[in-house]
């Protein structure tokens, strides 16, 4: 199976991941506390996506279909 789309997806997720890290560090303590549930949800979703694209393309496709 063509690896390139998954490779691109990993790169996109990478920008989201590091962008999120940068965003968190720009927040004041008060803003961070206020946004904590949202940030946690986004982080969890990102971790789940990262987990999915970490596997070879064929496995990823079947896992996405299973979900």
């Amino acid at each position, binding site marked *: 199976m063509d*690896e390139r789309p*998954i*490779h*691109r997806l*990993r*790169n996109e*997720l*990478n*920008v*989201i*991941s*590091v*962008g*999120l*890290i*940068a965003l*968190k*560090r*720009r*927040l*004041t*303590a008060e803003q*961070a*506390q206020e946004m*904590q549930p949202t*940030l946690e949800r986004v*982080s969890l979703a*990102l*971790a789940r996506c*990262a987990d999915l694209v*970490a596997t*070879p393309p064929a496995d990823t496709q079947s896992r996405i279909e299973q979900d």
Partner: protein
Amino acid sequence: MQAPVLAIVDDDRDFGACLADVADRVGIRTRLLPSLAEAVPWLAGNDADLTMLDMTLPDGTGLELLERLPLKRHGQIVFVSGTNDAESIRRAVSTTATEFISKPLREDVLERLLQTTQDRYRQRLQPPGTPLLGLSPAMDAVRADIARVAPTGLNVLIAGETGTGKELVAAAIHQASGRRGRLVSVNCGALPAELMASQLFGHERGAFTGANARHAGFFEQAAGGTLFLDEIGEMPPALQVFLLRVLETRRIVRVGGTEEVPVDVRIVAATQRGMQTLGTDPGLRPDLFYRLGRYVIEMPPLRARGEDVFLLADAFIDALNREHRGDKRLDPHCRTGVMHHAWPGNVRELMAATERAYLVSDGDLVNVVPLLHTMAAPPVEDASSVLFRVGMSLQEIQDAMLHRTLAFHGGDKTATARSLGVSVRTIHNQLARSRGHG
């Protein structure tokens, strides 16, 4: 202004910009190099403490870049790539790159890389042979341990919390040992498990796809010297069996080979476990623990080192004065706060707080305050905190605080009294009263 340098060799400019933003906030300067054409001349002419390198670039590959660089002048080189191709990964870690990290880059991994970059930069600034600072009895004991064990050739296990200076102890042991080989430091938690065997023991040509030449592992690189294995409990159990065998036979077998190669390497390992729980580290095989733990050196947490905290803060400020040609000193008004803070990140946390305070201070006085975490974590009770609920009596709160602080200081009533701002007699009285209530 001097600062550690991070070179980002990646054509994704958004990634580069976000990464630069994060690095900049912890005082690391960045250089974005989106192509081989830009990366090769810049890296050939400048020092980078950390180079984060993508595998695929618009005009070539990260592997090509490595072939064209004078690697000795560069610090850590880490591949950060979206490729999942096993052959590329094996080729990457067969080079002098220290690590291969798959995209997306995780927050804990990035923090570790930035921390390592700062540590290496500070080590680079520190003159060789810098002694372990501290006048406390705990540090006297550490120095005595080093002097006693260094010439013996015994393997050593260093136990201590994060940031207490375990790598400095390993370096001091190596320096005082008289061994002529190198000190090679390896963080077992940072090596991918599946590649650890090849990295430690080396591999033969053709051991796997992409192994085009024989590769000397860390054991061979440290021949005649010392191999420092940090976070030993993170080493996969199967590899611990191999390590045990190497310690017993003093011979290694390279991956893909059959020949036993004799190695003369002294092992200094480190764990974050405390002395009381050393033998119960679930990550460390008991037989390996007994083999390594014949001589254990315990690094004291900063909170148990009394006034060493001021000595260290002064030393950091002196180093910063030399670096920035300044003439600043510790603000006397912050001494109480510095002494009472628990410093869970130990000397590393103090160093970071001092550096930050130095850079933000306008005048001659450096007001060191513990760093605030941007992300406010939900309150969780642990060994260094107590959670009070509405409805508890003041007596219950006082007792809980007293017992937790006492446990935190390992039963040291003097340190507990200092931390709580009361006399030792008060501690004794409170404990007696508490026992009476119980």
